[in-house]
C-alpha cells in the first residue's frame, strides 16, 4: 500500500506524542507536591488531580500509540481518533489552565510548562492533521464507500 509522506510523518509524530503523554503522565502521577484534589459533586468522593491527570495522560499515550499504528495502515478511522486524542489533550490542559491549576504549582514551574507544552503539541498536531493532503487521503470530507476500511 503506497503511503503519502504526510501520513508517515504523522504516524511518527503520534509515536513521539505517545512518548510525551506517557512521560507526562508518569511524571505528574509521581509528583507528591501536587496536592490539589477534585471532589465529585453529590457523591462526595475525592480524587487527587495528579492521579486523574496521570491516568488520562497514560490512556492518551496508549491510544496515540495505537493510532500511529493504524495511521501506518491508513485505516479509515485513524484520522478521527487522532483528532479525538488531540481534542482530549487540549481539553484537559485547558481545564487545568482555566481551573486555576497554576495556583497549585509554583510560578512557571516545570508542571506549569508541561500544561503549555501539551497545548503546543496539540495545536501543532491539529494544524497538521487538517492539512489538505491528509484530509484528502482519509477522505475526511467525503464518505468512504461502504465496507471500505482502508483509505487506499
Amino acid at each position: 500500500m503506497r503511503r503519502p509522506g504526510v501520513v508517515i510523518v504523522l504516524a511518527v509524530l503520534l509515536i513521539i506524542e505517545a512518548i510525551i503523554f506517557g512521560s507526562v503522565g508518569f511524571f505528574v502521577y509521581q509528583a507528591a507536591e501536587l496536592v490539589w484534589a477534585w471532589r465529585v459533586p453529590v457523591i462526595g468522593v475525592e480524587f487527587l488531580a495528579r492521579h486523574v491527570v496521570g491516568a488520562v495522560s497514560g490512556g492518551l499515550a496508549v491510544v496515540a500509540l495505537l493510532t500511529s499504528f493504524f495511521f501506518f495502515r491508513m485505516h479509515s478511522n485513524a484520522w478521527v481518533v487522532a483528532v479525538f486524542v488531540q481534542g482530549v489533550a487540549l481539553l484537559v490542559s485547558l481545564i487545568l489552565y482555566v481551573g486555576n491549576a497554576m495556583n497549585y504549582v509554583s510560578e512557571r514551574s516545570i508542571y506549569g510548562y508541561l500544561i503549555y507544552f501539551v497545548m503546543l503539541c496539540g495545536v501543532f498536531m491539529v494544524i497538521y492533521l487538517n492539512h489538505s493532503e491528509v484530509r484528502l487521503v482519509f477522505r475526511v470530507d467525503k464518505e468512504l464507500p461502504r465496507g471500505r476500511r482502508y483509505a487506499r
Partner: protein
Amino acid sequence: MNAVEDRALLQRFEPIIRYTRGERFFPMDVEPYVDACSLWLQRPHEEAVCLIPESDLTLEDLTQPPKPHDFDAITFLKFIEPLNIAELAAYEVKRVREGLTRSDSERMFRAGLGRLARVGYVSRFVDAIFSISLLARGRVPGDTAAAAAIAYERILARDGDYRYYGRVLRQEGWIVLQYWFFYAFNNWRSGFYGVNDHEADWEQICIYLYETEEDEVQPEWVAYASHDFSGDDLRRRWDDPEVEKVGEHPVIYASAGSHASYYAPGEYLTQIEISFLSPLVRITEHLKQVWRRSLRQVSEESIPPEQESNFNIFRVPFVDYARGDGRSIGPGQEQEWSEPILLNPVPTWAREYRGLWGLYARDPISGENAPAGPLYDRDGTLRRSWYDPLGWAGLDKVPPPAVALVRLQGHRSKIQEQRMDLLSEIAVKHRSLTGLGLELQAMHGKPHLKEAYFAASERVAALSDELAILRAEVGTLDALLEAFDTQATRLEAGKRAPLRFHISHAHHPATAAELRMRRAAELWAALSIGLMMVAFVALALFSREHLVGGLVVLLSLFIFVEAGFRGRLIRLISSVTTALAVVAALVLLFEFFWEMVVVIVLLAGGYLMLENLRELWS
C-alpha cells in the same frame, strides 16, 4: 395577443400539480369562496366590524370595497366560523373511520422523520420560543381548519372545479405566463406540523418564453414560488433535468398545507426567520463564513456551491412535505383543469380589493394572517411578482436567447467606444507628460529654477499615476472585449451557459441518509430539550456550586449523543478539536507573547540567512 390566444398559450403549458397524501385543499375559483365569506373591517384597538354578512357578499362587492380612511385599518374576508364541539367530534370520527377503512388512501398523511430530529439544540430552543409565542400572538382558532375542510368539500361537491388564474404579459422581450392558484385554506400548522394556518392561500408559478426567429414560442425558464423567497434560486432552465415535465407541462410538487411549489418530490427542511432574531442570524452567517473559509473546516472542493447549506440555527425549522403521492391535477392526470380564468385585463375585484382574503388573526409576525390577492402584499402594496415577474425570478439581467447575441454585440460596441475615448485621453495626457519630462531635463541643475523644478516633478508624478490608472482601465476593457468575443462565438455556435451557474442555494429534499435512525432520533429530539431543563433544575437544586461546570458537561453529553444520532460525530469531533486548538493557541499567545516574538524573529532570521547562503553557493 387577444384573450383566445392568451388562453391557448396558458393551456399549452399549464402545469401538473402533484399533492401530498393528506392534502385537503386544492385550487379553486374564488367566486364560490367569496360567496361563503363575510367582509369585515378591523380598526386598531377596536372590535372587528362586519360590513357585509356571509349571505349577502358576492364577488361583485369586492369591485367596490369600502375604503377604511384609516392607515391602520384592515379589511378582510372571513370564510368560516370554527366548529362547535359536536361538529368537531363528528368530523374527527369521520376522519378516523376513513383512516381505518382506507377507503380514500389519498387522505392518509404520515409524517416522516420529525422536523426537530433534523436540527440541533439551538434550533429546537428557537422553535420552543416560536411555539410558546403562538399563545401570545394572534392565531387562527384551532378548529378552523376542520371547518374550512368541510366547507371546501361542500363547494367542491357542488362545483367540482379545479381552476387556476392565468396571466400573460410581455416584458423586455420575454413572454411571461403566470399561473395563480387559489386555495381556501392553508393548514400547514394544524395538518402537517408546519409554521402557520391561515384562511386563503395564493400561490403561483411563472414560465418565461421567448419568440424564435421563426416566430415560434419557446419556453426557456420556469420559476416556482416558495414561501416568500425570490431571486435567482427560484428559477430553473427549461432543459434542467430537475424540471420534470409531461410533454410541455411542467410538474409541480406542492407541499402539504403550505402549497409551496417544488421541482422534485421529497421532504424539504425549510426555515422561517423571526424578525427579532435577524441580527443573530446575520452574526451566525458571518461566523459560518469565517469557520468554513478561513479555518477550512469544510473542503470547498467537495461541496458544489449550489448545495452549500443555507441552514441557520436561529431560524425556525419546518418541514415541507412535497411528496407528490396524493392527488394529481393537470393534463392527462386523474383530475383535469377547468377553463382558466384570465387575469388580463385585470379583473376589477382583483384590482380594487386590497384587503386580506381570509381571517385577520392579528398576528404581528403575519404568519397566521391571511394573504392579500394576487396583486397585493398584506400591507396593500403591489407584489413584486405581479409588477416585476422578471426581477422577482432574477431574470431582469438575462436577455432572451433570441436577442442575446444582438444585445451582446450592442454592449460590445459601447465598451469599444469607451475604450477609444480612454485611448484619446491617454494620448493627450501622454503628450503633456512627455512635455513635462522635457521641462525637467531642461531645468535640472539650475538653482534659480529649483522651485519650478520640484513643482514640475510633482505634476509629473501625479500625471504618471493618472496615466497608469487609465492604462489599467484599458487593459481591463481589452480583457472584457476578448471575453465578449468568446461569448459571441459560443452564442453563434448555439452553446449555452451552465445550467446551474445562477443558483447559490438550491433547495434539496432530505436524502435517505438524513432520514435514517428515525424512531430513536425522533424520540431523542422530542425528549432532549425537556430532559435538559430537568437536569438543569436538578443541578441547581443539588449541586449549585458546580452549576456552570455541570451545565457544560451536560450540554457536551447531549451534543455528543445528538451528533451520534445524526451521523455527524466526525464533524463534531473535528470542529470541537479545532475550536479547542484555537483557544489553546490564544492562551499560548497570551502567556508567551514576547517569547513567541523572539522565536519568530530568530526563525525568520535563520531562514533568511539560509536562503541568502544558498543563493550565494548556487
